[in-house]
């Protein structure tokens, strides 16, 4: 077949027509794609707008703090700080887990909170809105009405939200509501940890039971200087104690800056803490800072008549010495 014949053949016509149609369609689609492209920001704005029907809202998207975002009960997907008219609220896109049939519920949760830092903590003031946007395997989720969710929102106590039937909420979708409650508790924990600064950064440290998040420390040449703010141990109030731990992991200086006692303690006793290491304090109050036995105090030569204050001061001392390695590794936070 010559070239001329080929160009006149049906085969050529078929290929030419098909190719030109594909080409025209491709070009048309590319143009339209650039015209109608929906950017990720627009998609986010659209999703947020659904939570606030008929309302113009402004917000800033925050990067999700991965340390607090994913647990067995929930996953925080997106986090927003609301600005403008809804200042003081935070919006979280969060997946509640462990629903019916091991499925999940995806919701947007709007929380009220006062922001803060570890030194100046804010507070979590409750949930003002829960919008369910999706679910996986929750066949009966339509049984959950707005009033049921409101009932869970209203049932907040210090441990968080609770939804099970002992709290009087019966929906016919107990497990789905459980997943939503997991998401709500997740929103509380995440907000408290990330925005309010309420999380105790010393949670993982040894003997931190009586140490509050207001505690700071610095490390210099292997010498750790703590500024420990203890919890209250009624009737004793919170102490603020400056403790310096030297390279040999013993206390080199112990100064009470804010005294929470009822004036019964004796500086002489606290002076005797100098030169002692973690093993000594653990022998007195136990490795986790629990009160073992009051008699331990006396047998170690600590007897003041101010047991509760002593306990706090010993906790601080144990915390300071036992966490020397951790403190050096972390490098200080003041």
């Amino acid at each position, binding site marked *: 077949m010559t070239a001329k014949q080929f160009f006149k053949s049906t085969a050529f016509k078929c290929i030419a027509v098909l190719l030109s149609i*594909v080409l025209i369609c491709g070009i048309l689609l590319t143009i339209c794609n650039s015209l109608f492209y929906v950017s990720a920001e627009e998609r986010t704005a659209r999703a947020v707008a659904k939570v606030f029907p008929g309302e113009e809202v402004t917000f800033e998207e925050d990067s999700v703090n991965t340390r607090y975002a994913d647990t067995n009960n929930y996953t925080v997907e997106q986090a927003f700080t609301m600005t403008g008219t809804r200042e003081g609220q935070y919006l979280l896109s969060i997946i509640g887990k462990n629903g019916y049939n091991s499925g999940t519920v995806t919701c947007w949760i709007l929380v009220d909170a006062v922001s803060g830092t570890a030194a100046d903590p804010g507070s979590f003031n409750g949930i003002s809105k829960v919008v369910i946007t999706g679910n996986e395997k929750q066949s009966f989720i339509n049984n959950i009405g707005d009033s049921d969710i409101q009932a869970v929102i209203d049932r907040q106590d210090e441990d968080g939200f609770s939804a099970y039937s002992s709290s009087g909420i019966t929906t016919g979708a107990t497990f789905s509501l459980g997943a939503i409650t997991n998401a709500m508790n997740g929103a509380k924990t995440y907000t408290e940890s990330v925005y309010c600064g309420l999380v105790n950064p010393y949670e993982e440290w040894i003997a931190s039971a009586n140490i509050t998040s207001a505690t700071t420390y610095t490390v210099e040449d292997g010498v750790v200087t703590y500024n420990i703010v203890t919890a209250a141990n009624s009737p004793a109030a919170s102490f603020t104690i400056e403790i310096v731990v030297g390279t040999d992991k013993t206390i080199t200086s112990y100064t009470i800056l804010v005294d929470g006692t009822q004036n019964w303690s004796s500086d002489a006793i606290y002076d005797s803490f100098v030169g002692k290491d973690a093993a000594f304090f653990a022998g007195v109050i136990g490795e986790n800072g629990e009160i073992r036995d009051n008699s331990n105090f006396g047998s170690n030569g600590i007897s003041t008549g101010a047991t509760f204050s002593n306990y706090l001061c010993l906790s601080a001392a144990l915390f300071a010495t036992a966490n020397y390695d951790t403190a050096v590794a972390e490098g200080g936070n003041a």
Partner: protein
Amino acid sequence: MATFIAMVLSAVLTNNFITVQTLGICPFLGVSKKTSSALGMGVAVTIVMALAAAVTWPIYEYVMVPLGFEFLEIIVFIFIIASLVQMLEMIIRKLSPSLYNAMGVYLPLITTNCAVLGVCELVIDESAMAGLLGGAAVNFGWAVLYSLFSGIGFTLIMVIMSGMREKLNHVKIAKYMNGFPISMVTAALICMAFMVFTYIA
């Protein structure tokens, strides 16, 4: 292994293309009069589904996504499926004329079977696949296996349906119920039976 079993159960039983997702209904109603033809169609669809996913998945993940051409997915996918069907038809005709005679008539119909395009669209949807695989990340192997077992699930329902329709031939059916209406009511019964599997996953 657990993921594999969960995937097989999901593809064949709990997320069956016909009874749960209602895709591929045209051949399901059209080619289920006889068991032999239903089986032929089912096998042909299974092969095309697995092949289509094996071709479209890498093209989408490694060519279209990096180039930002996701919006062309429908055209590209349908073209790939049509070409695959055409190619398969030629290969079968060349290699095994007897198989071609048995299966050939169903092959061209597969291009417009929405189960095939449906499975290609499904395996590129990461969130949907994560749900079906119990959280495991989708890769090429899972995508192809899922398509293959979806096809097997499709074949299973086709064969069950054809068995019931062969029995229906011996029954007198009211005039206006004959044909499509009675097939659909039969299909509804199969769907109801398969709904039970939703509770095991």
